[in-house]
Structures are given as C-alpha cells and as structure tokens.
C-alpha cells in the first residue's frame, strides 16, 4: 500500500464538549488511518464517542486538537478548519446518518438525485442513477413516495442510496443496518464492499450488529475516547 492510498488520516485528534463542570471529553487522542478499499467497523459502548469521531472525519465538527487529512487534503491542521468544506463534502464524503434525515418535501428518488443535482449532473442522468441505486437496494418500487410514507427500513435504504449517489470515496455510516432485517443488512454490506473495491473508496461504519462483523476488514473499538484495535 502506498501513501496515496490513505483516504483518512487522523492524528492525535481530541474533542471535548463544554467547559468546566460540564466538560465531556468525547475523544482524547485518536489516531486512525484508513486506506482505499477498506471497510472498517467502529465499535464501542454508547457514549464512547463513535458519532463524534465520524462527525470530525466528516468535517461537521471541528476537533479541539490534532490533525485531519482527507485524501491528502489537510482539513484541520491543529488550529484552523478549512473553510470551503461544503464542496469537499459533496464530492468526497457520503453520510449515512443514524436518523435517516431525508428531506420531507422530496420523493425518495428526488432525495437521492438532489445530491447529483447539486454536484452538477444533468437531471436525466441523475434520475437514472437514483433509480439504479434504489432498485439495487430494493426500494425502487417506492421511488415516487415521500419519506413520511416510507417504513423505517425503506427510509434507511433511501438514505444509503443518497450517500452513495455521487460515488464518494469516503463513506461514513452511523449504524447503517440498525433498521434493516439481517437479509437486507447483508445486502447493504455487499453493496458497500463492492463500492469500496470498485471505486477505491473506504467505509467507516459504526455498528452494534454482531451478525455482520465478519464483513469488515478491521474492527476498531473506542474506549474512553481512545482507539483499541481488535
């Protein structure tokens, strides 16, 4: 593996919320390197900082200290967070949220194609890509339905389709399979694996689902704001 393959490089990252009495040290000192093609699981008890770490990698939260590089780009150099992160998120990062966060006024298909629309894809191509992804995730028949009418599992699969739409190279998933039955969970894992291989992407997924542990290249445990590799 060459250094070029490093998609996520986190060094000495710390993050605390609040100050004084209410201070919570969510991350103390985290070092993490993820290569292209890797699918890794982030494990740990509730409140151990898994979501916080994903948000730091996803450029949503500024860490308090440390260094974050994504695909060779320094987004946090220990003091300053790069300011034009919006475009970087659009192009390089796909999020699958713990809560699905679909836009209520768009149909399932539009929720997926909006990302492509923002990235400048022509409308017809965007729609076709959205349909393809929804079909693959077996929610194609619900394409014209608004999120309010989708079941939890269907909404989650639409959200996954949205995260994958723009072929991002870094996919961050917070319990992506929690709302899915084990058959569909396997399917999603297959899809993520395929994506990682074909597009030289990396996947970091928070999960509690022991049935899919074997699908990951690495299992990483968070404990007291530090990483312990298993």
């Amino acid at each position: 593996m060459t250094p070029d393959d490093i998609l996520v490089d986190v060094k000495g990252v710390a993050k605390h919320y609040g100050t004084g009495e209410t201070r919570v040290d969510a991350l103390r000192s985290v070092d993490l390197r993820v290569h292209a093609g890797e699918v890794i699981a982030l494990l740990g008890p509730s409140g151990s900082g898994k979501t916080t770490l994903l948000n730091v990698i996803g450029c949503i939260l500024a860490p308090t200290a440390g260094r974050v590089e994504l695909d060779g780009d320094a987004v946090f150099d220990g003091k300053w967070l790069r300011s034009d992160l919006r475009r970087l998120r659009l192009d390089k990062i796909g999020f699958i949220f713990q809560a699905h966060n679909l836009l209520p006024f768009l149909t399932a298909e539009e929720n997926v194609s909006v990302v492509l629309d923002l990235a400048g894809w022509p409308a017809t191509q965007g729609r076709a890509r959205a349909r393809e992804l929804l079909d693959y995730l077996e929610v194609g028949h619900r394409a014209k339905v608004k999120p309010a009418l989708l079941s939890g599992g269907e909404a989650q699969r639409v959200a996954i389709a949205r995260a994958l739409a723009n072929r991002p190279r870094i996919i961050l998933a917070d319990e992506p399979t929690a709302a899915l039955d084990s058959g569909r969970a396997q399917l999603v894992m297959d899809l993520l694996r395929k994506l990682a291989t074909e597009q030289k992407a990396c996947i970091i997924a928070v999960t509690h689902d022991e049935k899919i542990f074997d699908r990951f290249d690495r299992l990483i445990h968070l404990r007291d704001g530090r990483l312990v590799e298993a």
Partner: protein
Amino acid sequence: MNLAIKDIRHGLFRFVLTCFGLGLLMTVVLAMIGIYNGLVADALAVVKAPAADVWVIEAGTQGPFAEASSIPADTRDAVARMPGVAEAGAITYQTMEATHAGRTLRLYVIGFEPGRPGGPQRIAEGRGLGTSHFELMADRKTGLVPGDTIRLGRDRFTVVGLVEDAMNSGGDPAVYVTLADAMALQTALDPAAARVQSARGDGGLRPPTVAAVIARLEPGAGVALLTATVRQWKHLSALSQVEQEQLLLASVVDRARRQIGLFLSILLTVSAVVIALIIYTMTMEKLKQIATLKLIGAPDRTIVGLIVQQALILGISGLGIGLVLILLVKDNFPRRVVLEPFNALVLTGIILVVCLAASGLGVRAALKVDPATALGG
C-alpha cells in the same frame, strides 16, 4: 430541481391558505389606496367638471368650494367682455336635502347657464337642460332616472338627463339645474326674515348673486394676465384652474386625505411586519432540513435561493390575490375607489422590498445553522 417549489407543493394547502390571508391583507391595503385616490378624484371632479381656465370669485375668500363666495350675477358680462376671454358663465353651488321614493337624498345643487361654461362635460343618459324651468340633470349615484320628478324647495323638478362622477368633496351627488332655478331655490331657502323684507319691497335693492364666474380663454391668452386684471377690481378675486384645484386639496380635503394617508401607512407597516413574520417562521421551520442540505454539501446559493424564491412567490401571490379581490369588489363601495396601474406598481415594489428584507433575516439564520444539527443522533 427547484427545491422552493417542491417544498411549496409538499405543504400546498397551508401555503395557499397563507397566500390567501396575505391576499386579504393586500385587498385592504389596495382598498385604502383606492379610497384615498377616490377622495381626491371626487373632490377634484366638481372643480374639473366645468373645464374652466379661470375662476372669478369674491375678494378675500378662497372660492366657492372652501367657503361661501358671493359675487353679483352681472359680473359674468364684465368678465365675458375682457380681452382674451372666449366664454364665461355664472355658477352657483348649494347643498340641500330632498326626498325621493321615501329616501332622503343630500344633493349638491349646481346652477349654471345652459349654453355657457359650467355644465357637465358629458351627459351619460337622457338630454341636457332646455330653456324651460324646473328641469335637472342628476348624478347616477342619486338613484334618479330620466322621467323621475323630485321636489326641491317649493318646486317639483323633472329629471331629464344623467351624468356620472359629479359630487362634492363630501361625496354628496350633484344635480345640475339652470342658474335661474338655482337662484330661485336660494331665495326660497333664505331665512324667513329676509323673505319678509324682500316682500316689503326692498328686495329689488339687493342684486342677485352667484358663487363664481368661470371663464374659458381664447387660445394663446394668458391666464396670469387675466387673473391679475380681475384682482384689480375691488370686490373680486381670481384663481387659475390649477390654483383652484390646489386650494381644494389643501383646504377642503386635506384633513380627510391625511387621515387616510396615515391609516394607509399604518396598514403598510402592519403588512410588512406580517410578511416578515411569515417568511421568517417559514425559514425557521425548515432549519433542520437546511442543515441536512448543508450536510450533503449544498452551497449557500441553493439555500438562499430556497428562502428568497419562496418569499417572492408568497409576496407576489398575495399581491395578485389582493388585486383580483379588490377589482371584484371595488364597485360595491359607497364612495369611489380609484386604482391606477401606478399604485399597483408601487405596492408591488414595496412588497418585493419587504419580502427580500424579510428573507434576509431568514437567510441570516439559515446560513448560521450548524450542519451538525441535522444529525440528532
């Protein structure tokens, strides 16, 4: 993909309801503007009706519309003989009450000499006054129709024609009678004591009076020159048509105009606050979705577009509904409601500015929102 329209269509019923409410508010604003214009137009109607160039009035007064003006009736001959005058006519104004078909009418009685300036410009129905006594032309708002008879003073008048938009600044509809009939009406209305006096025989000593004499000038004759000449006469004064109109607006309808004007500005302020609040709340309700959009990488321009487009759609629809409604109901108002395209244009400008300013507030909040608020887990 237009997010603003998708979002509106998602909550269409509520959006339409909001537009309709705003539309009603805009109807009230437009009605107020129309009433304001109507007041001015009505007040000027009576001054504009005779299409005069110069008004000769009693010295030391502001003319027949502001206060009582009384000049000898034969002034007309003197004015008609002045150089530059094409034609002149004597005119009287008085307000009286009469009953017709069991209704009490307040009428503004205008006396003029048929064939001379002072009569209405256009007869909408029927004919003009003939030479015989006790004929009148009535404004359509009186409810009279040609052939009706109505008692004014001691005599019964026959309606021979109808005119439109003739009324005094108080909104009382006008009736036109001959100068001779009008002067007879005036004496009939004089206090009883005066009538007794004139019956004793000294009435002949008081020359008949009229309210004003109006003159139309020959092409090329100077208004200023004529008014200056008239002013040299001891008991007379003169106003140009423009001065007469300005005087009327400044003295007679000024307070009513300011009253409505003030009310109009309060209404506009209220509308602005309401629009601002609606737009701000609309944005606040969407903050979580805006955070999601930011999270998936939407640029600021997308978010600003969403808010501003919705604000403009709301403002324009509200204004459109208001315009349609006011056009539907404006003829049912007891007084004239006059709306010029210019008014609608200015109001559109104001609404657009208010919408943009209000969306500015929403945009500020939306741009500040942290994408992390979309995560909630």
